[in-house]
Every structure is written in C-alpha cells, then in structure tokens.
C-alpha cells in the first residue's frame, strides 16, 4: 500500500494497468486498493500541480495568518469551514503556535488578494487580525520540484 501511495503522490496519472505492472499486482488488486484508499479517506482527491505564474505572470499566491476567536460550540471548525467556501481559497489549516488559521489564497493580482483579505476575511466577526504574506517564488510544491532546471549530467552512453 505504501509504495502505491508513493507512486500516486508523485504521479496520479499512472493507469491501473501501469501501476499493476510496476508493483507486481493484478489490475483488479490495484483498483481495489485504490478504492479502499479513497473510501478510507487516505486519498482525498486528485489534482494537477499548476504553476499559475506561467499562465498569468501577474497572478499571486499568498499565505494569510489569521487570529480567530473560537466559538463556544464549534471552536475553530465553523469559521474554518466558512473560509473554505471561497473560491479564492486554496487551503485552510488550523495551526499551533502564534496564530490560529492559515489560509492559502490565489488571485489574479496583488489588488485582488488584498481586497479579498480586507473585505472578506477581515470582515468575519471572529477574525481578530490578519497577516498576509505574498509568495515570491515556489521551489517545491506537493513533493514536486517546480521548474527544475537540473539536467541529467550523465553521459548519453556509458558502459
């Protein structure tokens, strides 16, 4: 199971047939294993790792730290779920340490993101404060090295 997860993590587009060959299993076994991982919630979904800046060089990615007042019944959950509803939001995480909730946001430009923070996030009652960090450059994302310029230094043919 571990090696299956590892393979899917680096390339979710491998077909069941390919995975079966590589792991020395049958296609049916792979399909069953994946079904189980999905049912158990180990696999939550599949997505492509996109470098937005290639599509639009103005696009920005920001990490926002929120300090939040926990609610009497639900603690942080309700606020976090509310924030998760916005399309601009890529990820929402409850954190230990100096702040409570970490929100990753993408936007077409800095203004879009700033407006989203000041008008949407900061406007939520329970949010006490926000600190916005714009990402300048990504080097590695989801285990994938971004725009790796490393070339194969080995010769083309060697004994």
């Amino acid at each position: 199971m571990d090696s299956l997860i590892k393979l899917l993590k680096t390339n979710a587009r491998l077909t069941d047939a390919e995975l079966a060959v590589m792991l020395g299993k049958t296609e049916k076994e792979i399909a069953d294993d994946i079904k189980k991982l999905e049912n158990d919630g180990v696999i939550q979904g599949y997505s492509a790792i996109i470098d937005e800046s290639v599509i639009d060089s103005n696009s920005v990615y920001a990490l926002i730290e929120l300090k939040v007042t926990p609610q009497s019944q639900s603690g942080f959950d309700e606020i976090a779920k509310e924030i998760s509803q916005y399309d601009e939001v890529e990820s929402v995480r409850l954190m230990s340490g100096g702040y409570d909730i970490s929100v990753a946001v993408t936007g077409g430009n800095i203004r879009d993101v700033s407006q989203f923070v000041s008008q949407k996030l900061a406007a939520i009652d329970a949010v006490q404060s926000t600190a916005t960090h714009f990402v300048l450059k990504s080097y590695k994302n989801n285990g994938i090295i971004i725009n790796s310029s490393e070339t194969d230094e080995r010769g083309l043919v060697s004994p």
Partner: protein
Amino acid sequence: MIDYNKVLSKTAIEMKPSGIRKFFDIAQSIDDIISLGVGEPDFKTPWKIREAAISSLKLGRTVYTANAGLMELREEISKYFKRTIGMTYSPVDEIVVTVGGSEAIDISIRTIVEPGDEVLIVEPCFVCYAPIVSLSGGIPVSIETKAENEFRLTPDELREKITDKTKLLILPYPNNPTGAIMEKSDLEAIAEVLRETDIMVISDEIYSELTYSGKHCSIAQIDGMRERTVVINGFSKSFAMTGWRLGFMAGPKEVIKHSLKLHQYAIMSSPTTSQYAAIVALQSCEKDIQMMRDEYNMRRRYIVDAFNKLGLDCFTPQGAFYVFPCIKSTGMTSDEFCEKLVYSKKVAVVPGTAFGKCGEGFIRVSYAYSINHLKEAVKRIGEFLEEIKNN
C-alpha cells in the same frame, strides 16, 4: 617527426576502443536525444554521505590514507561482508580499498595472470576484462552464455573451455548488460567444476545490492571457494557514488598482499574524501539502498512488461538495472537496430555486441531513469517498430 607506431607499446596500440565508444559518438552528434544508454544510477548520492565528505574536508582530512585504505573503513567493509554474504574477511590483511571496482578488477587480474595464461570471461559482460587480461599477456577466452539459460553460466559451458592453461575465471553477476544473476544452486554447480582444479575466480559483484529476488549470493560462500576467490564490490552502483571512484576487494591474505603492492605503486591510496564518505555510507545508509532498490524494481517490472508487449522478447532480469531484450524478430543486427533507432527516433540504447559477440541480436536498455522518461522512450521504440514493420 616521430613515428608513434614504432615508439608506442604495441599492446596499447592494438587494444580496441570499447564498442560503446562508437555509439557514444553517434549519440553525441544528435540533439535532444533521449537515452537509455547509461550504466550509472540516476539518483544523487544520499545527502548524509555527501555531508560526511564535506565535513571531512572542513576538518582538513586531506592527506594520504594507509595504502589499503582507512582502517575504520576496512572495518566497516569487513562488517558489510559479514552481514551481506556471511563471509569473514580480516580488515587487517584481506581487504583493499580501491579506486572504483575498476581498479580492483585491474589489480586482481594482474596479481593472478601471467603471459600465456588463459582467462575465462563469461559473456556478455562489462567491457574491461579482456583488455586488462591482454595487458598482462593473458589470453581472454570467452564463455558465451545463452538467453534460454537466462544468461547464467552452466557447468557444461564452463567445463568445455577449461584447458591445462586455464588460470582464472571472471564471474560477473549480477550481470551488466543482461541483468542475470546466479543463484546459490547455480554457483554450487560451478564450484563443483572448479574445486578439483587450481583455477582462481574473480567475482565482480558490483551490482550485488541490486538483486530483486531473494538475497545476493557470492561464489565465495560456497564450500571450498573462499581460498580461490577474489570478491570485488564498490560504492558506485549500490550507493549511487559513481563519481567518487571508490571500490574494494577482498580475498585470501596470500593474494591480497600482492595486490596491495600493485595498488601501492600505482595509486598510493584511494581518494581520502571518498573514503570518509564511504564510512557513513556503510554505517547508516541501508534505508537509502532499500529505497533505490524498490524504485529500480518498479521500473524493472514496467520496462520488462513494456518490451514484451512491444513484441521484443525480454527475459525478466533479477539484478542490476538493465534489461536485455531480443531484437532478432526485426531481422536487423544489434548495430543496425541501434543506429536506426537513434537516427529516426532519437532514442539511444546500446547494441548487445558491445558486451561480447554473443550479445548479437540483443540490445542493452538501462532503466536508471525516471518512469516518465522510460515511458516516452518506450513510446518512441513502439513507433519505430511499427514503421519498420510497414516498410
């Protein structure tokens, strides 16, 4: 003007360049080539090994070591032999740290072979054995292994080539280029033939860690074989340390003491930085080896399946990181196949003939590449096969 043909050594002049060289030149002349031709890992040396080297430099450990290598490293090598093949070699006088497995091959052959001696070389194999045997005035005698035996050496094939001049057998398993291995029962049958003779064995086990079914077995483990066997291994393949140039050899002290003289006069001592790094490799990199082996294993399954689906018969190799598919169904020679493939689809593989005459009809494909790289290459080879079928 000096006539160099008169002043230079005849042996050197007559030595043929490696069959790979010619192919390398062709591949080099073509842009955007996608290669499956490399005989070295695609992994970087594990970081803690590199760190150990850096730290040794910071500490100023930049002088020669003992001729045979750092004692601490030899002790680790001794433990390594114990835990991998269950053999005891004394770090004091039965182990030499060499400049890659290559130097170990060189000095062990020179230690054993005299002019006129016949040396049995199991082919297909790595390219350096025969030329080095010739340097010592020895006579290389090929033993051709066969695809139907999964390229294992059989006792009959061995017996057939033994004469009263036979001095040495070179046994290269797990094998480059075929990926074949010799299991314990195979080795026992070979030992049975050798025990009643004075023939020595050099067992080149550089790919021992890359064995995919069960544990690697060395011929030195078989009854009566330790006294006649020199075992060669190294860090290049198993620890992804090709550029560090570090290997080692072990054998009976009566052999090793003479090899050590050759090493001492030619090399002094192996690279000090590499030796410090190698200590860490042996002490704490078992997990890294396992990770790399698992990765190669997945690629191996993928590529064997892919070639069989393409209609190029490919036996399932159990070692190293090569597959050796048969291309006889295309009606081409290995050389033709490889040249046409590289010119028309820009995929470089190595003709089987680079590793001995009996490699004719086969190509060596390295899977020391990422799955995506392998997939692209397989796709192009598939297109190539379609095109030649339709022509």
